[in-house]
């Protein structure tokens, strides 16, 4: 099929059907704002400005998605952790819970009124007004375990997983309820898909057994809720995930978004017949410091590993740095445009848009 718009192309990939060519969704969040000369701080509480910049960026680069929101601290900020806004990203700088008993002070946020939740919802409404259903409108959110680490501190959370797992489950219940409330509002605002950012659950931090106990059941609730509303859940974990791909693919998300450290040909072999995979070009080595030629050919290599058979969306392994050169983003998008699907779901590159880099 030819002439798909971006939304149709991404949906085909997620359904493991035939897109016209490889869809591309670089994780361009704060980088997008630079297109109109903005930084994150000045847009955080101005959803119209934020939306205009995101749309301008996705239109300029011809990105198949338009990412709403900026970070994974929205939920924990609403629940009381202090967030400091640096030039291009807000960050938790003081954890709400000083003692375990502070769990009793936690309350599930109201997305209509609390913190930045209503601003992200408004941003989605603005984006939808501007581009309708032509590109995937996809907000980013924090996963329950990651939220818990932002409320109590990551090291303390790891220790309590050993000393007092029951208490950790109680905390994760509140975080999951926060996610469910927020996702409901994001869906009502018009999101086509929602990314659950759960970096705390990577193999470098949690064991596969801990993932099964502390992450999987709560994320499953969120992904199941989302799909019950017809909205696609995207399971994003940065860093190494190679020990948990099977689990990550079995909890209701329809897409795995993976970081540069994993080998996507292995991912494809293990789970590629049952779930769409997205990733995983190095956001620093290639996107920030590479050349258009090196980015293009790295993308081609990534496509060859994971695109045959469908179920693949080309992207960066994690959020692009705001200083990422625009030529490198164009080169990534071009690699997807050059990779067309044949009827047997094999890939043909219609041209070499960049010469191979000389090492």
């Amino acid at each position, binding site marked *: 099929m030819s002439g798909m718009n971006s939304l149709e192309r991404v949906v085909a990939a997620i359904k493991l059907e035939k897109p016209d060519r490889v869809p591309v969704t670089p994780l361009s969040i704060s980088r997008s704002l630079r297109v109109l000369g903005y930084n994150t701080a000045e847009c955080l509480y101005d959803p119209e400005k934020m939306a205009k910049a995101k749309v301008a960026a996705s239109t300029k680069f011809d990105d198949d998605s338009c990412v709403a929101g*900026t970070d994974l601290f929205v939920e924990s900020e609403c629940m009381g952790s202090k967030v400091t806004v640096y030039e291009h990203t807000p*960050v938790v700088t003081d954890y709400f819970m000083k003692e375990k008993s502070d769990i009793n002070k936690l309350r599930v946020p109201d997305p209509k009124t609390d913190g930045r939740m209503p601003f992200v919802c408004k941003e989605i409404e603005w984006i939808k007004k501007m581009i309708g259903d032509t590109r995937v409108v996809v907000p980013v959110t924090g996963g329950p375990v990651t939220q818990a680490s932002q409320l109590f501190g990551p090291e303390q959370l790891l*220790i309590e997983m050993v000393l007092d797992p029951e208490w950790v489950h109680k905390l994760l219940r509140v975080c999951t309820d926060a996610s469910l409330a927020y996702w409901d509002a994001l869906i009502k605002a018009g999101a086509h898909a929602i990314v659950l950012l759960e*970096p705390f659950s990577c193999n*470098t*931090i949690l064991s596969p057994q801990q993932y099964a106990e502390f992450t999987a059941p709560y994320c499953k609730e969120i992904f199941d809720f989302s799909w019950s509303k017809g909205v696609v859940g995207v399971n994003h974990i*940065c860093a190494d995930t190679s020990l948990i791909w099977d689990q990550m693919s079995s909890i209701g998300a329809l897409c795995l978004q993976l970081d540069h*450290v994993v080998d996507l040909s292995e991912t494809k072999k293990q789970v590629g017949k049952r779930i769409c995979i997205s990733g995983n070009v190095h956001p620093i080595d290639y996107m920030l410091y590479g050349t258009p030629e090196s980015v293009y050919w790295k993308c081609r290599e990534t496509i060859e590993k994971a695109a045959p058979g469908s179920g693949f969306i080309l992207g960066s392994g994690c*959020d692009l740095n705001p*200083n990422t050169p625009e030529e490198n983003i164009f080169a990534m998008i071009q690699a997807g445009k050059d990779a067309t699907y044949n009827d047997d779901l094999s890939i043909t590159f219609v041209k070499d848009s960049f010469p191979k880099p000389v090492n």
Partner: protein
Amino acid sequence: MKTAAPPKVVAVYGFLGSGKTTLMLNLARKAAAANRKSAVLINEAGDVPVDGKLFTVNGLAVREIFGGCICCSLGGDFIETLKAMLGIPKLDYIFVEPSGMADARQLFHSIQKHLKVPISRIMLLDGPRLPLLLKAASGILTRQFEAAEIVLLNKVDAMTRDRLAEAQELLVSFGIRGRVGHISAKNGLPKGLEEEILA
């Protein structure tokens, strides 16, 4: 004309409560006492409350760098900031304190790849809590061990001789490859080690 030598980059890292900020401040004070100029790059929210005021007292330039995402935060911003600091004239040391949850191996690899500067890599561990930490955070600690030139067991003044021996055995059983020492950071480093780090 001979160009000035770049500042020495010293990374002090470890879990929350391991004493890395205390050790870093001690090193910076020693450097200042010897009329050497230092700067500090911090990627941490929490631990000892480090603010501009504290470091101004010690005559240090401080850059804080925080990222959005626990595993990726130390990427481009960290490298770009360190690159800018390497250009500060007449600087002798840059003390780098990555987040306690940093994937140190990946971070140092990226710094060396893109900035081509050597880094002294000192990992601190909270000695009394070592058995618990190894149980709770073996994944991230393994990556940190792999990146360390020196692993220092801190707060040994709060440990009995038996507990210290037990902790050292635990480290051996964990397959620590680098040098292992023990200190009490609040009392400063043993003289030889301090001189080695600041050499």
